[in-house]
Each structure stands twice: as structure tokens, then as C-alpha cells.
């Protein structure tokens, strides 16, 4: 057995050093990079938030100019929503998908690398605006006419529109990769009724992204054309329609909200049952609720625009559709509560994050229902109440599951457990800090405090709540810092974890920690939803994890049929390649050229991209893409 594994490891390993760094297509490395990079942007966005909170801690402070404040809140929103919340979940799914599904890699390993590189370059592109003093400044949803050339002539908005289109490419190719991986790369027997909920969440988010991202990318292109080439899409003077931007933005924006929470709900649905020592209650309703949320989510974008003067019929329809979303959300929430109720909870740090997430999900959900009601929304729109709502949603439903998820999967990734004692400090500081910081924002909003103001007058009664919010936000930041300290310390000093430290049920816990380059020594054969709990659940059929297809003539893995996951084809997988990096660099040159009005740079970018694509797609015999390929 051992020489065989050594050969597999050699086949699948990435070269050491910088060569491997720039050419790796290993989904595990890419997944880790995604999570680390997302946390770098989380820290950047967090620092921006803290600076703003200092400015708002008391009335009439002048630490920030209005212009600087505009840039900070725009970049804060952009960083958190586009550069942290989406990519961090891509990181989880990249790392976990093949392991959860019983495969050796994603369907398109090189596309995976491309998606990561574009994400990094788009993030750097955006952040390059800061040192130039030209950061986007029209809010994360960038409404015209304020973002039009007439009122915002600098490069600020060009950074925003080009950066968002660039990042959209990364999101789109990543989404395609998840969809095809799910459809084709499952171990035999992993039929769709046996998929982990995280997989359902990521599938739903990815399909949503494929259909929704084009809306905002198109909006950005149209806005750039208005700004650069004299078109009339959004300018009022020549019968353009500023509201068209709002439609395009929110047709994307609302599904995107679900794209950045559904995989996180999946993390909880898969990991919480491990600590409750029982399977998730209501697997099928939860899976269906995940998909339903996204489908309905495509029909509610107008609730972001209730105050723009819509016909009553539209208000009624979109208000009602927004209320419908509570049904699938409640299905999931009750499933988690029932899992807790009927289980025997073990209170690890990860468990605490998941359990508190349920509470935050309900708070964010209720404030969402409130803003989904048209008459109340007219009162609350553009106030701090909305800021409170969206932070309960994004931090409560994304950051808490993500941090809990890292406590849960850290031992799988590194082979070491994170420190539980420091974990408690980390958890309680984050939970108390978060609620102290963000709950009072509801009150500030009800007291009439508008969002996006750089300061406020004394005597409005807003000083108290704002000071509490500032204190809470700093406490929350300390909590996040404790988390990072725990990660760094545990990398070296954590207790060795072994294969399955939590005695969990799913496939990733059947392989060694850290996971070998080839993932699975043999392709497992799956017989149930809980391959590692079959004995105690007294399942009639048993999965085969030790014996299965060996697939060792080169980098090979199995393709299975879409619904029933029956063996269909042996796939030849590509090895490490520089083509994704080259293509990402070419595209970066194109976007820099467009930004800087340089046709030469943009042209070089297009040519470099085309050549990289050609090298990438050239049919290769080793991948079985050409005639007379040797049958293995």
C-alpha cells in the first residue's frame, strides 16, 4: 500500500517553492489562499470601520473630512461584501467540495486557480485607489447621478466599475466550477439526496451567481460608457434613467445576499449536528428551503427601492414576495433548533459560534421582515436601522458561521486543534462586542439617524447610542484579533488532531489530517448520507471507504452521472500550470489600461489574455483531448 500512496502523492503534489506557488491547481491550496486573502480584506475593511466609528463616537468630531468618510464607508462596504463575504465562502467550498464529494479535485482545477488570481488582482486594483486618494466614494451600491461623470469626475468611480467587472469574472468562473464539480465529480453512490447541505448551499449560490452577476457587470459597463463615451443610460438631462442602475444593481444585489449567506447556512447545517451527536433534523426540507430561498430571492430586488416612487402594485407584489422568504428561512431555523433540542450538545467553541448564529439569524431575519414591510420601510430606509439589519445578516450569518467553521475544519486542514480556552474568550468577546456594537444601531435608526453621514449635531440625542456602538465595535475587533491569535498559535502549538477529532459523519473526516495531495487513496463508494455514522445509525447499506477504484495511471478521478452518481467516465486531470496566472495578469493589464485611458496597455492585456487562453485550451494528448490518446 505505501509505495502506491507515495506514487499517488508524487502525481498530485504541487512543486515546492515559488514555482508551486504561482502554478498550483490543488483545490486545497487554493481554498486556503482564498480564506487567508479574504481575512486580509476583512481586517482592512474592519480598520476602515473602526476609523469611522471613532469619527462617529461623539457629535461634531472632525477626525475625518466628509470626502475621506465617503471613501471609507464605500471601501468598507466593498471590502466586506465583495472581497470578504463571497470569497471566504468560495475558500471553504474550494477546500471542502472534493473532500465532501469523494473526488480528487474540482472539475476545472486551472479555472480554480484563475478564479483566485483574478480575485487577488481585483482586490489589489480596488485598493490601489487608496494611496492615490481616489477611492470609490459613492457607497457600495454606487447610485447615479451621484456616480456620474458630471458629479463625480475623478477616477474614483472608474475604480469601482472596472474593479467590480473584473471581480465578477472571478465570481463567475468560480461558480461554474462549483456547479460542474457538483454535477460530475461525486463519488459513486453520492446521489443528490446524500449531499451535505453545504454542497446544496454552494450549488444554489453558484447558480444564483451565474445568473445574477451579469446584471451588475452590465450596469458597470453601461455606467462606464456614460462616463467615458457619452452614452445616455443613466443621466437625467437626456432622458436617461438613474433608476435603471438601481434595478440592475439590485437584480444582482439581492441574489448576491443569498449567495453570501446560503453556503454559510450550509456550514452550520453540516457542522452543528456533529456537536449535537445526531443527524440534522429535516434534511430534505432544509435542502429544499435553501434552493427555494434563492429562487424567491430573484423576485424581491425591488424591496431595496420601496422609497423611489414605485406604482402601488409593484410595492404590494415585492412586499409580499419579501414576506414569502420568511417561510424557507423559518424552516431552516426550526430545523437547527430541533437538532439542538433533540441532540446531546457538546459545547465546543465551534458549537458556541453555530448556536449563537441561530440567535443572530433570527434577529437579522426579524429586522429584515420589518424593512420588507412597505410602510415601515418608508420610515426606516436610509437610516441606521438598515445598517443594523445588514450587519446582523452579514456578520451574524456569515462571519459567525465562518469563524465557527474554521474552528471545526482547522484540524482537518492543519492536523492540529485550535485552543478551546482562548476560543471561549474569542467567542464571548465577539458575541458581546457584536451585540453591543450593532444592536444600538437599530435604536439610532428609529431615532432618525440617517446612514452615511460623517458627523451629526449635538442635541439630537444620538451621542449615547453612538458611543455605545463605537465601544462595542472595538470590543468586536478585539474578539476577531483573539481569533487570529488563536489561529497563529494553534498552527504551531495546537494539539494533534488525528483523522476525526469531532467524531463527525461526513466523508472529509475519513482521510488523514492534513489531507494528502491526492485526497482519497481510492475513490470511495457511498451508501448513505452519513458515511462515518452508518454503524451507530444502523443503516442497512454500508459505504466502502477502504476499497474502491484506485485510478493511479496519472492524475485521474472519476466522473459520475448527474442524478444517481453512477460511474460514467475516468477523467484525466490537468497538472500545475502557469496559464491561469498569465491570463489573470493579462486581464489585469486590460483593466489597468482601461482605467488609465491607455489603449496600448489595454491592447497588450488583450493579446496576452488571448495567448494564455490559447495555450490553456490547446488540446493535449495527456488529457485525452486529442485523437489516438492511449486508453489507460
Amino acid at each position, binding site marked *: 500500500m505505501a509505495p502506491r500512496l507515495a506514487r499517488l502523492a508524487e502525481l498530485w503534489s504541487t512543486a515546492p517553492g515559488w514555482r508551486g506557488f504561482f502554478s498550483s491547481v490543488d483545490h486545497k491550496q487554493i481554498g486556503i489562499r482564498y480564506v487567508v486573502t479574504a481575512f486580509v480584506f476583512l481586517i482592512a475593511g474592519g480598520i476602515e470601520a473602526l476609523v469611522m466609528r471613532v469619527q462617529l463616537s461623539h457629535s461634531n468630531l472632525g477626525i475625518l473630512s466628509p470626502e475621506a468618510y465617503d471613501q471609507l464607508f464605500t471601501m468598507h462596504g466593498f471590502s466586506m461584501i465583495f472581497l470578504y463575504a463571497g470569497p471566504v465562502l468560495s475558500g471553504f467550498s474550494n477546500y471542502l467540495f472534493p473532500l465532501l464529494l469523494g473526488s480528487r479535485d474540482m*472539475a*476545472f482545477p486551472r*479555472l480554480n486557480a484563475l478564479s483566485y488570481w483574478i480575485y487577488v488582482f481585483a482586490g489589489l486594483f480596488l485598493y490601489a485607489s487608496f494611496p492615490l486618494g481616489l477611492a470609490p466614494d459613492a457607497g457600495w451600491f454606487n447610485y447615479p447621478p451621484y456616480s456620474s461623470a458630471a458629479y463625480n469626475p475623478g477616477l474614483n468611480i472608474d475604480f469601482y466599475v472596472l474593479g467590480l467587472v473584473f471581480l465578477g469574472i472571478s465570481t*463567475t468562473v468560480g*461558480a*461554474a466550477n462549483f*456547479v*460542474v464539480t457538483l*454535477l*460530475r465529480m461525486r463519488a*459513486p453512490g453520492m446521489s443528490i439526496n446524500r449531499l451535505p447541505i453545504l454542497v446544496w448551499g454552494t450549488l444554489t449560490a453558484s447558480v444564483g451567481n*451565474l*445568473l*445574477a*452577476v*451579469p*446584471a451588475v*457587470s*452590465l450596469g458597470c459597463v*453601461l455606467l462606464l*460608457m456614460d462616463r467615458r*463615451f*457619452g*452614452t*445616455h*443610460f443613466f443621466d437625467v438631462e*437626456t*432622458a*436617461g*434613467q438613474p433608476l*435603471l442602475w438601481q*434595478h*440592475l444593481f439590485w*437584480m444582482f444585489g439581492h441574489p448576491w445576499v443569498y449567495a453570501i449567506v446560503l453556503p454559510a447556512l450550509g456550514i452550520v447545517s453540516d457542522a452543528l449536528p456533529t456537536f449535537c451527536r445526531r443527524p440534522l433534523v429535516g434534511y430534505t426540507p432544509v435542502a429544499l428551503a435553501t434552493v427555494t430561498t434563492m429562487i424567491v430571492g430573484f423576485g424581491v430586488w425591488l424591496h431595496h427601492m420601496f422609497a423611489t416612487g414605485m406604482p402601488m402594485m409593484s410595492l404590494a407584489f415585492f412586499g409580499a414576495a419579501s414576506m414569502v422568504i420568511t417561510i424557507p428561512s423559518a424552516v431552516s431555523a426550526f430545523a437547527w433548533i430541533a437538532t439542538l433540542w433533540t441532540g446531546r450538545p457538546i459545547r465546543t467553541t465551534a458549537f458556541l459560534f453555530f448556536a449563537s448564529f441561530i440567535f443572530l439569524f433570527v434577529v437579522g431575519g426579524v429586522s429584515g421582515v420589518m424593512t420588507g414591510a412597505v410602510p415601515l420601510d418608508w420610515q426606516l430606509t436610509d437610516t441606521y436601522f438598515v445598517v443594523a439589519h445588514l450587519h446582523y445578516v452579514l456578520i451574524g450569518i456569515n462571519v459567525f458561521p465562518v469563524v465557527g467553521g474554521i474552528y471545526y475544519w482547522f484540524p482537518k486542514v492543519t492536523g492540529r486543534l485550535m485552543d478551546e480556552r482562548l476560543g471561549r474568550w474569542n467567542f464571548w468577546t465577539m458575541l458581546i462586542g457584536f451585540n453591543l456594537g450593532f444592536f444600538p444601531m437599530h435604536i439610532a435608526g428609529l431615532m432618525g439617524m440617517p446612514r452615511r453621514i460623517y458627523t451629526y449635531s449635538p442635541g439630537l440625542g444620538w451621542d449615547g447610542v453612538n458611543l455605545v456602538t463605537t465601544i462595542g465595535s472595538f470590543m468586536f475587533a478585539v474578539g476577531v484579533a483573539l481569533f487570529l491569535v488563536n489561529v497563529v498559535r494553534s498552527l504551531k502549538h495546537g494539539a494533534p488532531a488525528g483523522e476525526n477529532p469531532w467524531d463527525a459523519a461526513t466523508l472529509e473526516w475519513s482521510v488523514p489530517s492534513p489531507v494528502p495531495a491526492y485526497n482519497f487513496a481510492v475513490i470511495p*463508494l457511498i451508501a448513505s448520507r452519513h458515511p462515518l455514522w452508518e454503524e451507530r445509525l444502523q443503516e442497512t447499506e454500508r459505504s466502502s471507504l477502504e*476499497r*474502491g*477504484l484506485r*485510478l493511479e495511471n496519472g492524475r*485521474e478521478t472519476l*466522473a459520475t452521472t448527474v442524478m444517481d452518481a453512477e*460511474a*460514467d*467516465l*475516468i*477523467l*484525466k486531470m490537468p497538472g500545475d500550470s502557469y496559464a491561469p496566472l498569465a491570463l489573470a495578469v493579462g486581464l489585469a493589464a486590460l483593466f489597468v489600461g482601461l482605467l488609465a485611458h491607455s489603449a496600448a496597455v489595454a491592447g497588450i492585456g488583450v493579446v496576452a489574455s*488571448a495567448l494564455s487562453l*490559447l495555450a490553456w*485550451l490547446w*488540446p493535449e494528448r495527456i*488529457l*485525452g*483531448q*486529442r*485523437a*489516438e*490518446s492511449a*486508453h*489507460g
Partner: protein
Amino acid sequence: MVEAELRAQSLPVGSFGRRSSGWFGVWCLIATEAAVFLYLLFSYFYLAAESSGRWPPHGLPSLTLAGPNTVILLLSSVALFWAERSGARRGLRGRLLAGIGAALLLGSVFAVIQWREWRNQTFSLGSDNYASIYFTVTGFHLAHVIIGLGVLAMLWLWAALGYFDRERHAALTIGAVYWHFVDAVWLVVFTALYLLPRLG
């Protein structure tokens, strides 16, 4: 389990037409590209619905060039379909090259005529919001045609180099469905921009 191992012996290996990962991938590409055009047409109809004057403001778009050009683009799809069916699948390289070549030629003619069509217009990109959306929608489509021509050119080259045989021509299957998609999008664009205003 032994059964599964035995069956593995008979499984095909590598990239096989509609069982290749790329076939599934190109459908993802088509889905997201179809969404792009859906949002473009949403923008077109939104601007039309919100316009106070006549729509289209410059009169009905002429069918003199656009009508025949639509037929030319459809013929290029037919040629490519024939190349795959009666060329690639039977391993007849001559037919394959002729079919892809014809598709390439007809597609190029479409692009040139479309360029003429643009030059014939009495308005330009910045004239008004109709002009902006007209050139943007047709421009997005033309860009897809030009990329598709690049794809066809590479397929022709790979076919000429003998990379494809009866069983292995996944790249052709994948490239062809993209080209058919570009043609299908034109039918939708043509209907929306050229035919629907005639009903009103």
C-alpha cells in the same frame, strides 16, 4: 465493489464529447452569457417603456441588411452542424474542414455586413438613449461573433492538424454549441430590436 472495479475497465478515459467536463462548463458559460443579454434587453425595454416620445425615435430600423444577414448567420450554424454530424462523427476530415471553413466564412460576412449596418445609421452612440442601447446591444452581440470567429479559426486549425477523430473531438462539440448560442442570441436581439417595433 469488485463489480465496480471491473466496470472501471470499460469506462472511457479522458475528454469525451458530451461526457467531458468542458461540455458541462460551456453550458454554464451559455447560462451566464444568456443572462447578460437578458439584462441588456431588460434595459432596452425599460428605456422604451420610460420614453415619453416615439420609440424607436429614428423610425423603424431597416431590414434591408439585417434581414438577409440573419439568414447568413443561421446558415453558418447549419454549416457547423453539418461539419460535426457528417464530418467529425464519421471521421471525414475533408468535410469537417469544409464545414468549419464555411461557418467561418459566413460568420465573417455577417460581421462585415453588421459593420456596414452600423455605418448606415443616421445616429451615433451618443445621440440619445435609444442610440446608446441600440449600439450597445448589437455591439455586445458583435463582440461575441468576433470571439466565436476566433474559436472557429482555432477549431479549423486543430482539425487540420489532425487532432480530432471519430471519437475524440470534444473541443469541436464545445466550440460548436457556443457558436450556435451566439446565433440563437442574434435571433432574440433581431426580434426585439428589429421586429417588435413593427408590431406597435
